[in-house]
């Protein structure tokens, strides 16, 4: 008997659907967010051998890894931000697992981000996109494509004397997405907010408004240029960390081949 689920499995094995990896490799040199030094900092990814088929363990190799919940490609849960600290089921281990698989739309901002490091996703940009692709569906992930993931080294954080310069959404854009009833918002940059996001009101609007409304965040994504504007399925289950505010994760998208 054919079911929707077996149709998906069949499409994948036939090759009419395929999986796109939206995840950066966890690498000690991958940038993390840098805060003023008197604040606590995000741990970099580190890996140390426990044994490697040697006197410490003759037949096996394994590593201890250390990292922050927000290192590398990662998921933000509502309790990550002060606005979401009292959201029910706001920790990664409490979120309904159904939220981890769902529809995704991609708003292509790559032209604008190529021209302007501080490019803003505004309500106008979203409405222009909707005029072409239809209304942002309720309960969908919305990903902001900037091709920022193709940058490397110091160009990724793009830090200047006055802080980081990278694209992100305005408070009004996030308000509009919340009005559409989205599930979460994701970016290719180190955070869901713009590099200069602290200067908006409220500061860090994506974090403040999304998490306050019980929505999720994804950041440090890549390969968004391989996704269609609509019609893909996002698979983004964070690790089940007790009381976790977020989690490094493997983010996959299912698209029609």
């Amino acid at each position, binding site marked *: 008997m054919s079911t929707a689920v077996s149709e998906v499995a069949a499409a994948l094995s036939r090759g009419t659907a395929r999986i796109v990896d939206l995840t950066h490799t966890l690498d*000690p*040199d*991958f*940038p993390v967010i*840098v805060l003023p*030094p008197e604040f*606590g*900092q995000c741990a*970099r990814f*580190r*890996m*140390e*051998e426990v044994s490697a088929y040697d006197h410490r363990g003759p037949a096996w190799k394994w590593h201890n890894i250390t990292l922050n919940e927000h290192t590398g490609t990662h998921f933000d849960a509502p309790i990550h931000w002060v606005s979401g600290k009292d959201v029910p089921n706001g920790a990664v281990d409490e979120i309904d697992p159904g939220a981890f698989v769902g529809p995704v739309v991609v708003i292509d901002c790559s032209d604008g981000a190529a021209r302007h490091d501080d490019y803003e996703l505004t309500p106008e940009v979203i409405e222009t996109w909707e005029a072409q692709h239809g209304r942002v569906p309720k309960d969908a992930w919305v990903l902001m494509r900037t091709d920022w993931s193709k940058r*490397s*080294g*110091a160009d*990724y*954080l793009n*830090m*200047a004397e006055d802080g980081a310069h990278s694209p992100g959404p305005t408070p009004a854009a996030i308000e509009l997405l919340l009005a559409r009833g989205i599930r979460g918002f994701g970016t290719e940059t180190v955070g869901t907010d713009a590099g200069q996001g602290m200067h908006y009101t409220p500061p860090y609007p994506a974090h403040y408004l999304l998490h306050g409304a019980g929505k999720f965040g994804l950041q440090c994504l890549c390969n968004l240029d391989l996704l269609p504007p609509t019609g893909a399925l996002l698979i983004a289950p964070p690790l089940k960390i007790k009381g976790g505010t977020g989690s490094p994760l493997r983010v996959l998208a299912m698209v029609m081949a």
Partner: protein
Amino acid sequence: MTEPLAPPPKKNPQKRTLTPLLPPATRSRAALGLGVMAATGRFGLQVCAECQAVQYPPRDACVKCLSHDLPWQDVDPAGTLMAETTIRVSPEPYFRERMPWRIGAVKLDAGPMLNCHLHGEVARGDTVRMALKLDRAGQGVLIALPLEGSDVMQDDPVLRAMSCDPKHRRVLISDARSPVALALAEALLAAGAAHVFAGEPEAWRHWPARAAFEAMEDVSLLPLDVTDVSSVQKLSAEIGGKVDILINSARFTRPGGVLGNDTTFARDAMEVNTLGLMRLAQGFGPGMAARVQDGTNAAAAFVNLLSVQALVPDAGFGAFGASQAAARSISQSLRAEFRASGLRVMNVYAGPGEDDPWFQPAPPPKVTPKALARSVVQGLVDGVEEVTCGDVARDVYARWQDNALLLERELTGAGA
């Protein structure tokens, strides 16, 4: 006169690197005191507390009055070379490779006659300046130096073997982003270092001083992060055979006592200041230890830049102090582990740095990067193991040696 040391030729790849040999290291407990003096760059001998007779060789009872009270004291190093001889045959493997070898007898103005090594610029009848130096075995030995040597007196082969002179050597500074790194690179090159490798952690974070390093000749910036074992392993695999002196400049500082601080910062401090040192030693130590007898640019020294809080903590920096004390402890173990190779471990203690933002509220005197760089280079030239830089470190070190418990009470507010 001393022959100026020529830059070494490139290594002959068909020749085996010589195994480092050491001069004989057996000493009585009393004679180990010579090494303590030499390690701190002082010249001194036992002086009888009862009759003030200056003792040589070191002993357990006064040569004159049999008193057991023989504290080590600084002694006037002036003397006269009364006799000298040249040894041409020795059963000791270390000296066999270095024949002929001159030794002499110096009548110290302060009293005793000393048997000592001779600098090439001293001759019988000369007034000389005695020095205590560490030999490659890490033992304190006496050498007669000229009162006023030539400009290249440091190139004398006997003295060079006792020092860790940066001249013609290649130096790795582990963290180029450290406030002292640029001054250090400049001082090392001015002292004749052949090349400076400067480790660059987190190239993905902009740092303004990078341009200054890029503009310097004979300096290479290379990726190195002491908190990342893979980065240490990679760089040591690439350049480990060319690092003659390693200077660990990496440091993580955060204020806050033990109660008021969190263990996240404490862990960061341990990762950089303590385990970072361990990773560097594991990555670069074995290669350096194997190259202590590798010609003019043989590996010579492993240098740790420590805060004076390694000796006694400032309670306002509880976790930082703990990481520094742990780093000092690791350096002492390294000293023992490297002893068999002749690789020297030099600890440089300094108080708050002028350019260190974490000590911005601290009152003067503070240590400038240039002053710290000068102390490091001078310590390497002198071949010592313990260096203090600046008034704060000198004062704390002296009081710590005198009475560590008293110092603790002074610094934790129990004093007046």
